[in-house]
């Protein structure tokens, strides 16, 4: 990932900054600048998600790309944030502990690094409440 691409999304990665449509009340993560339901009647504002949610489904990654090999086996899940939007993220827990419906909260972790001398990509993962 280029430095600029990482930097551009820091608010979303660190603080789960998404958007909300004031017209229909729907939340969007990653953020949308346009409400697909309300269209021109929509009014989009920034929203920081609470970081609490529940596991909708998950998979255990045992064979990963080189960048994440040291973390295997790790849990990757689709999490429904309490505001309603869904996000795919790592849940820091053992493959034996993870369950569908598990309540989780956000944590701040290293996601990846650009080699030995490149930028460290920090961001949000989740952990059981």
């Amino acid at each position, binding site marked *: 990932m280029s430095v600029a691409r990482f930097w551009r999304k820091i608010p979303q990665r*660190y603080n789960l900054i998404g958007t909300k449509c004031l017209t229909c009340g729907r939340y969007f993560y990653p953020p949308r600048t346009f409400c697909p339901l309300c269209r021109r009647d929509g009014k989009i504002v920034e929203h920081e998600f609470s970081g609490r949610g529940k596991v909708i489904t998950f998979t255990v990654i045992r064979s990963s790309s080189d960048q994440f090999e*040291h*973390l295997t086996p790790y849990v990757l899940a689709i999490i429904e944030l309490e505001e309603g939007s869904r996000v795919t993220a790592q849940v820091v827990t053992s493959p034996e502990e993870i369950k569908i419906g598990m309540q989780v909260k956000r*944590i*701040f*972790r290293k996601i990846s690094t650009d080699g030995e001398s490149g930028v*460290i990509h*920090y961001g949000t993962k989740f952990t059981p409440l």
Partner: protein
Amino acid sequence: MTGIMTYGVYIPRYRIKIEEITKVWGGNPDEIRNGLGVFEKSVPDLDEDAATIAVEAARNALMRRHLSPHEIGAVYVGSESHPYAVKPTACTVGEAISATPMMTAADYEFACKAGTAAIQTCMGLVKSGMIKYGLAIGSDVSQGAPSDALEYTAAAGGAAFFIGNDDPIAAIHHTCSYTTDTPDFWRREGQDYPRHGGRFTGEPGYFRHVQGAVNRIFQETGKSPKDYTYAVFHQPNAKFPQRVAKILGFSPEQIKPGLVVPHLGNTYSGSSMIGLAATLDIAKPGERIFVCSFGSGAGSDAFDIEVTDAIEGPDFKLSAGPSVQDLLKNPVYLEYALYAKHKGKIVMQR
């Protein structure tokens, strides 16, 4: 009245026991446990570093008391293990608590006392009116070379203190320092692990500087150990703080709540700050806390702190953030091989 507005701590979930380390490098675990007064130490997860620990500690502090991010005018992070040699951890923390961009920030390094130096800086900025709130953090994923004596204690954890004037939960009445050029412990640029002067770290290092700062603050304030309910000293092991407390006239009961090293290890920049946090976890309004840090190189910062009614007031909710004892519960114990992987001690093909 300048003081602590709120505070938070973070300790990783993983631990390694002394006997697991002696299994690999030899030595008698009973002798080492008795010698250090340490039974186990915390270990960071594979994706944790001094920055992630600092962020979690700061967020735990803000769970206890809401402070407007736009009123946080300074972020200072003290650590011996900043993830970057050049690029501030403090900027990452500032961004992660939404305090950027209208703030000043810097990383501090003064061995194990960089975090308390950050508290002093924030006090100065708050007292002068330059900022409303300042954030001071001590956070480390401490380094200790394989088979070195430091490996038995070098742990991971951090504490965050927000400093301000506006109804603090604990007033910091006075602070002063004692600093000299003493090479008792160091890490050269580019080196992975620190070196130390063995027994030289004791008398000319820890004891001289802690006693120097304590005697100075007692002279300046007219206080003595009997004026304090609790006392916290830097804890590289359990023996040093117990011995210096006895020399200075503090009782074992005064240092007990803040003596967290036996089941946590030495969190370097986090050490005395986590001890202070553990003491604040149980402190009541009107109780007085004495704190003295120590950083090799060498220096000590002493603080005269008094808990206020605000700790039980409507703006501060202690139970909203995890206590130090909460964070020490339910550890996951690692074998040495996994510990070595977590600490990056296994050299991989690059």
